């Protein structure tokens, strides 16, 4: 744990700081991956994936009896493929649109996950309520030894996820950018559009699983979508959008945690609430700005 002498504010304990660090890592890792979902108009897929991975996680838990991340990642990957197959079969056979196919698939899988968790009710480690809103407050009590420092297990995993995200993003930046903005053009350049899509889905699913335990299945959606969508309102350029989304993600996590601490309420819930407030505030500010600039340009062009 951090030495109490370097704690900047006396009303924050070192446990609080580790929790904030975990929340920031989760928020930034999800936010960066989510930028690409927002650009590809796939925000609701983030919602679908975060619900659909539940039976994979529950299955891994039932089989191994532990909450190790690796079996859960494996289980979630299997379920991710099931989701993709079911949605595409549904839109082919039933001729339903993408939203409806996704909605039918993820609610079915989530229901399966909840029932599997009820089966595991004897093993009290995992219960359906926690799945919804996570256990951010308990993050500091489950630590691992990392180079001699006791680090919360969730923070270690989320840090690794963030690192992998950034490496993958830098390595495939050109491909991601081309396929997100103009898939037809990217395909004509010989880029594997489908493969990039699949890779992005895998990355989103992996981030979701790692962040799941800390923030729960519904709030992870806010972390995935809100930073990218909010940043997109302010800028039309890709690289500034990614930086802005990172800053927004970190700020949301910090403000949300501190507000929850002050009000003595759920931190994950507060972070999601602050995400939405930030998005709505940005919508208001951006539309006010464009209205003002439209008015001033009108004034400039009308003589007298």
């Amino acid at each position: 744990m951090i030495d109490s002498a370097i704690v900047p504010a006396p009303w924050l304990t070192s446990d609080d700081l580790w929790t904030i660090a975990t929340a920031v890592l989760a928020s930034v890792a999800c936010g960066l991956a989510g930028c690409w979902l927002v650009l590809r108009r796939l925000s609701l897929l983030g919602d679908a994936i975060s619900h659909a991975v539940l039976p994979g996680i529950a299955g891994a838990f039932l089989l191994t009896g532990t909450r190790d991340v690796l079996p859960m990642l494996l289980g979630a990957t299997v379920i991710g493929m099931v989701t993709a197959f079911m949605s595409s079969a549904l839109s082919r056979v039933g001729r339903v649109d993408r939203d409806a196919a996704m909605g039918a698939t993820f609610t079915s899988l989530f229901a399966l996950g909840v029932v599997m968790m009820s089966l595991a009710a004897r093993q009290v480690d995992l219960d359906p309520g926690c799945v919804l809103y996570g256990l951010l407050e308990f993050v500091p009590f489950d630590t691992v030894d990392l180079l001699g420092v006791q680090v919360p297990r969730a923070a270690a995993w989320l840090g690794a996820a963030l690192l992998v995200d950034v490496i993958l993003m830098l390595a495939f930046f050109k491909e991601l950018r081309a396929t997100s903005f103009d898939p037809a053009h990217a395909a004509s350049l010989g880029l594997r559009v489908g493969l990039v899509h699949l890779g992005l889905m895998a990355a989103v699913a992996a981030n979701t699983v790692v962040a799941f335990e800390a923030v729960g299945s519904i709030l992870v959606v806010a972390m995935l979508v809100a930073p990218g969508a909010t940043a997109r309102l302010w800028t039309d350029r890709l690289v500034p959008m990614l930086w802005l989304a990172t800053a927004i993600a970190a700020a949301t996590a910090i403000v949300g945690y501190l507000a929850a601490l002050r009000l003595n309420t759920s931190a994950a819930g507060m972070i999601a609430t602050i995400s939405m407030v930030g998005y709505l505030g940005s919508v208001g500010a951006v539309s006010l700005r464009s209205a003002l600039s439209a008015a001033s340009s009108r004034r400039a062009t009308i003589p007298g």
Partner: protein
Amino acid sequence: MTELFRLLSLQDASTRVVMLSTACLAIAAALAGSLAMLRRRALVGDAVAHASLPGICLAWFVAGDRSFAMLLLGAFVLGLVSMGMMALVQRLTKAREDATTAIAISGFFGLGIVLSRLIQNQPGGNRAGLDGFLFGKAASAVTSDAWIVLAVAGVVVATILALRKEFGLLCFDREFAAGIGRPVHRLDALLLVLVALVTVAGLPSVGVVLVVALLVIPPAAARCWSASLGTMFAVAAAIGAASAIIGTGLSAVLPPPGGASSGGWPTGPMIVLTAAALLALSLMVAPERGLLTALWRRHRLRASASRSIGSTP
């Protein structure tokens, strides 16, 4: 075993009313969901459902008591607020509609969790009345609550059937409907209100997280069977009602998985799983495009082709 018999024979007056109301609600949701799906607004109900959690909590704060009607009213009001918010954002900016919906789903749910924790912190406050709303508890519902659900379902079904020509036109050719003077904006708004109504009335039995399944799964399954609105309505309603009855029955009859102390089988997920099984069945054996149907047809074609090749002189 006697309990199973009692349930199946519907001897229990309260079980009878609760099952009847859940089934009627599922029918109403199937009809409203079919229209919403055809208007490509399938997941609007999800935002309404998640926004109802803070609505329930606010009603708890304002009214103090946990009267069922008050909680549902709070849920309905916040559901409309979330729809209004999404429409306003759409009007103000060129923001992506899907991003706004996703943020609304998770932001309102987060607010609901914040509020419910605050209720828990209050002296004497407990979430006993609220936790049932997460995953649904139809099996233990009270008769007077069931009558409210039944009334809402009746109003929604009656409205949709009365306006089914107008709604059909709206869904299949909106421009034409507008051209011949149908009030398309008001019909769209009415459809959203109907979706909000069934979503909120479905909360007690299916819960906040999964109620959207009632709006999405039966229509998607029905779409596999038919392309005509009338048939789709009928099949979706039948699938919805069957899921509600079988799911509620299973969650009431099955012995609790973790021993008597655990909460038992959650009603909402059992209803949704039943619907999902019927959806999977529809995917497999639907006429024309069903996965197994297509295999069978290919097999027949191949057999007849080889026979005709064999018979040619």
